[in-house]
């Protein structure tokens, strides 16, 4: 089966699957009552389904990738926690203002590794979504994350950050309590935190709200996640003067995992199951778990001074500039 998820809503570019999936469903239903054996035909149709999925997902445009990253059935932060973290002990509150449910932090174990988790969570049903502000954290979320990171440093536990947000919450309270300062502080403290940090963009890497928990030794992305300085809609509205041009903006922003690995923005791409993480959440979780345990083990072997020196260099070299010859440029 190409999917663990029955009745998955199809994205516009997946419509080619409708016909074959309907045929499979009909044959399966007929099989219940019929003495004839349809298994060979079903098998053939399933192969066709896999071929269509492979063809589609090997050739996703940037905008289609964004849609996969935002798929309503895509596994969210706490889904990964549920599947791969043993003995999760959640940490609540920033000790300053409130507990932000868009940013979930906790102690726990991934494989055999004890870690501190920092997880952006968007929420599943309406009630859940409202409780965690659709994954848009307030300053208290970033400050809770910093508190968790300081705990990690104190107890020499690696930090694992799962990133999935459209951005930090744009609201009055957010500005009053200094969301910019909260994000800035995390960038600075993460750059010198004396314990390994692994960051994984699992869905949407929405600008500063994502980067606010995204400074690490290793930064990875799930294959169909995206990471961008601005949303495609926002970019399109400013430069193309209409949000309708989001597909063009998505392409221009080069926000997919493949491009970002070339730019050195990320170190690794975690392959997703055929047709995206939403088709096989359990397999996606296994991939993420393997990446975490393998990377954490590698980073833990480094002496802390080398780890911090490497982390500095990793971030230091980001960006692309031209160097003129010694002559001044004006």
């Amino acid at each position, binding site marked *: 089966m190409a999917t663990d998820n029955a009745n998955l809503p199809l994205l516009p570019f997946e419509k080619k699957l409708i016909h074959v999936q309907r045929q499979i469903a009909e044959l399966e239903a007929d099989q219940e009552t019929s003495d004839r054996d349809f298994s060979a035909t079903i098998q053939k149709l399933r192969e066709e389904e896999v071929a269509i999925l492979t063809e589609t997902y090997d050739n996703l445009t940037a905008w289609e990738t964004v849609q996969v990253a935002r798929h309503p059935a895509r596994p969210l932060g706490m889904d990964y926690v549920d599947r791969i973290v043993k003995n999760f002990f959640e940490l609540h509150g920033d000790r300053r203002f409130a507990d932000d449910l868009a940013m979930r932090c906790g102690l726990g174990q991934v494989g055999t590794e004890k870690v501190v988790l920092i997880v952006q969570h968007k929420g599943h049903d309406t009630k859940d979504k409202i409780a965690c*502000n659709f994954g848009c954290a307030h300053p208290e979320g970033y400050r809770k994350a910093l508190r968790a990171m300081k705990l990690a440093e104190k107890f020499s536990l690696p930090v694992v950050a799962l990133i999935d947000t459209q951005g930090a919450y744009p609201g009055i309270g957010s500005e009053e309590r200094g969301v910019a300062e909260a994000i*800035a502080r995390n960038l600075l403290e993460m*750059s010198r935190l004396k314990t390994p940090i692994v960051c994984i963009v699992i869905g949407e890497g929405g600008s*500063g709200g994502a980067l606010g928990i995204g400074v690490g030794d290793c930064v990875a992305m799930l294959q169909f996640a995206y990471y961008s300085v601005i*949303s495609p809609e926002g970019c399109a509205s*400013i430069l193309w003067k209409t949000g309708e041009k989001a597909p063009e903006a998505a392409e221009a922003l080069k926000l997919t995992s493949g491009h970002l690995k070339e730019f050195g923005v990320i170190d690794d791409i975690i392959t997703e199951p055929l047709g995206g993480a939403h088709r096989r959440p359990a397999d996606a979780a296994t991939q993420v778990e393997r990446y975490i345990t393998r990377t954490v083990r590698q980073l833990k072997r480094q002496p802390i001074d080398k780890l911090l020196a490497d982390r500095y260099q990793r971030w230091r070299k980001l960006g692309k500039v031209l160097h003129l010859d010694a002559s001044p440029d004006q």
Partner: protein
Amino acid sequence: MADIPDDMLNGGNVEGPYRPDAFEGPAMRGKKDIPDGLWMRCSGCENMLYRKQVAENMEVCPKCQHHFRVGGRQRVDQLADPESFAEMFTDIVPADPLAFEWLGQTYEQRITKEQEKTGNSEAVLTGTAYIKGRRIAMGIMDGDFLMGSMGSVLGERLTLLIEHATEGALPLVIVCMSGGARMHEGALSLMQMGKTSAALARLDDAGGLYISILADPTTGGTTASFAMLADIILAEPGALIGFAGQRVISNTIRAELPNGFQRAEFLLEHGFIDHIVPRPDLRSEIARVIDLCGR
């Protein structure tokens, strides 16, 4: 770039309360409040002002103290001791890593246009200078250059400047004026926030003094990185300082924003800056802080 159009606020199929231009912040106003000629109208008090008198007053309205925006070079002249600014890192100039194109324009063309307009190669000037005889490392963002947006060059020059301050034990002064991270370099612009912050962590570890001055406007990724990480944060009166753009916020909460929201006075009240300093007093206040910190 014109003001952010209203339609972007409802653009696309964004789910949830977030609106997409949050990190662009408010766009820079045009130059319309400073027309050419002998006279100008103050956008603060509506009075007609003699242009020369305003210039002599550091581009501050003598009647209502409204602070007009000033470009990078002019800011250097206002802040540094005469002829003391030694510019560094001018050999670092913009690339076009994404080969970014929109509506028949290329990023490369846009950069050339901004360079011709401002006479600068990028949106920040970096170097050493003296302020009342005290040697400093100085970074001045230029709001006239593509809205003072932060791309790879701005991040690289500032990082080199921070490293220079760390190595030379120089007080670091950065004047911020920025619409946020620059879209045309994609995630590489975003990463400059992490890069400059990492360099500032080292300056901090070395006991270096960092003073930031927030001018109108300081928004988006600039605010959420080096602008807010100084030991001492000063702001000019009335400066707009924030993370998300005002229209993004009012659209999200579906309400009018309170008067004075995200202005320097609002940040002072909420505990995020140390002082609001009128432009003519900046030099003496910076010198005082340097002396009091024993740097």
